[in-house]
């Protein structure tokens, strides 16, 4: 029987190890190795930190890196602020059938490809788009208004794209908050603001953290939205990775960029977990 269990264990362990080893761990090590080499001549490489040096000294690269980070944090914050009241409404104010329907309505847009969602925003906001025509019709503009290709538009798209991943964890944690706890808060003389600050937000913290982590990751790693909605000045870090790999075939620099993105996202995720004293298992699993 013991040897039986052992064979079963090995049989179950093999796919896991193959998957994580061949598709996650080794490829990332390989990517790191490529990023720390420099091409000397045809087929001759030398280990050096030249790629990172280039990435950290070239103003365009560095600027894009920080811009992407800051904009992603901003997108996460905006998503949280917009999603929180709605999630609270779904979890606590709406009851029964209405609650289910509202929750479903939140999910539906995200069964559709991100490409379609971005396309929708393009139809709405471009120069010949719906909003521009509407503004002219209302007399608020006397010529077509181009609303695409700005940071604000890109932000609208980013927030839209990741909304679901904030709403779902928030609704789940808020639903588990007992109404009587809120009532007790009011009975003890609290008002709307203090109940929100002392009871509701602390209770929702796990949902806030996991929502923020996922939204941040999705914004940071987004390619479509910045490419389609953002302007020339709103280059996203993922676009630079794509350019180095596919357009310029400079894999060394591209791998260095990829590694920088990975480190940035890990640091921020780790920081958020650390700040709230939670582990990855609790937040994701």
């Amino acid at each position, binding site marked *: 029987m013991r040897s039986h269990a052992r064979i079963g264990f090995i049989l179950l362990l093999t796919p896991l190890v193959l998957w994580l080893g061949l598709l996650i761990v080794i490829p990332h090590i390989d990517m790191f190795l490529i990023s720390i080499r420099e091409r000397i001549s045809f087929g001759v490489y030398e280990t050096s930190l030249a790629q990172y040096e280039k990435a950290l000294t070239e103003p365009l690269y560095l600027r894009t890196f920080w811009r992407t980070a800051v904009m992603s944090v901003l997108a996460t914050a905006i998503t949280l602020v917009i999603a929180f009241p709605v999630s609270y409404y779904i979890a606590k104010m709406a009851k029964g059938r209405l609650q289910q329907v509202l929750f479903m309505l939140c999910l539906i847009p995200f069964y559709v*490809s991100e490409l379609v969602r971005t396309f929708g925003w393009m*139809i709405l906001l471009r120069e010949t788009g719906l909003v521009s025509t509407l503004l002219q019709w209302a007399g608020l503009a006397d010529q077509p208004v181009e609303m695409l290709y700005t940071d604000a538009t890109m932000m609208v798209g980013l927030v839209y794209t990741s909304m679901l991943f904030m709403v779902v964890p928030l609704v789940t944690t808020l639903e588990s908050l007992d109404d009587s706890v809120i009532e007790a808060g009011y009975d003890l003389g609290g008002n709307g603001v203090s109940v929100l600050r002392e009871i509701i937000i602390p209770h929702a913290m796990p949902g806030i953290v996991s929502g923020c982590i996922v939204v941040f990751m999705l914004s940071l*790693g987004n390619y479509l939205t910045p490419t389609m909605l953002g302007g020339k000045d709103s280059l996203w870090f993922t676009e630079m990775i794509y350019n180095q790999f596919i357009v310029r075939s400079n894999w060394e620099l591209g791998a260095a960029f990829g590694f920088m993105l990975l480190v940035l996202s890990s640091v921020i995720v780790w920081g958020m977990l650390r700040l709230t004293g939670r582990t990855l298992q609790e937040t994701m699993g």
Partner: protein
Amino acid sequence: MIPTIPQSRSFRLIYGSYVLLFFLYLALPLTVVAVFAFNDSQFPSLPWEGFTWNWFFGEDRPQIGVFHERGILRAVGTSAFVAACVAVLSVCVGTTNAFLFNRYDFRGKGLLYVLMLLPLVIPGIVLGISILVFSSTLANGIWDLAQMDIQALRPGLLLVILGQFSFITTIATLVITARLQKFDRTLEEAALNLGATRLTAVRTITIPFLMPAMIGAVVVAFLMSFENFNTTLMLVGSDAPLTIAMFDRLKEGSTPLLNAVSLLLMLGSSLLALVVILFQRR
């Protein structure tokens, strides 16, 4: 701020309209995409030129409908093939993972579990390039050793499937593990007492119990694969799946054809989602 606590009328009104606005915001882009699929014009924008089905069924230029556009149909086929492979593979591995984490205690289990979650927090593009880099290292190594060119390791469908599999498996594992944790082990023990072998017990008792989660995971994996863009973008070869094909067309300028494809996608994925929800409610 719950229904049992009285709130002023104006507060409720403002709160209600905020929620309404939010849902308008959610619905707006999709509605617009859907409506302009029926515009009898070369552009998915105003002015409205009248209603037409041509972007679905049209046979002649300039209004070739989805069902007569070879490029799009081929891309749909590619996407469906990739998605089916990814769904089957990831649910198989997800199931074995669920059993491993649920049934065995071993050294390094915690570490492996964290490692298993990692693909969710790695940006899709980085997953894509790391697999691209590694597969080409392998291909070059094999070429140096044996002068053999393994086409499968160059960008193409196999790499797309592996790339999507690498993170969708995590989701499948989480879905199936959640259900397995609810399983009552005594049922399996009863089967063993009645003379079943361990394998028979798992096959006839545990797997049927897991079925709803496994089917749910298949559908979710299929949808995620079908919609995936970032990882696919880095690994795609000459056969483009639908999202990549649509992206290429969108860059060149859009016609209502893309709206028609999008509308069909929306209908298809809502239908699949509905099936899952109904199935799980039963």
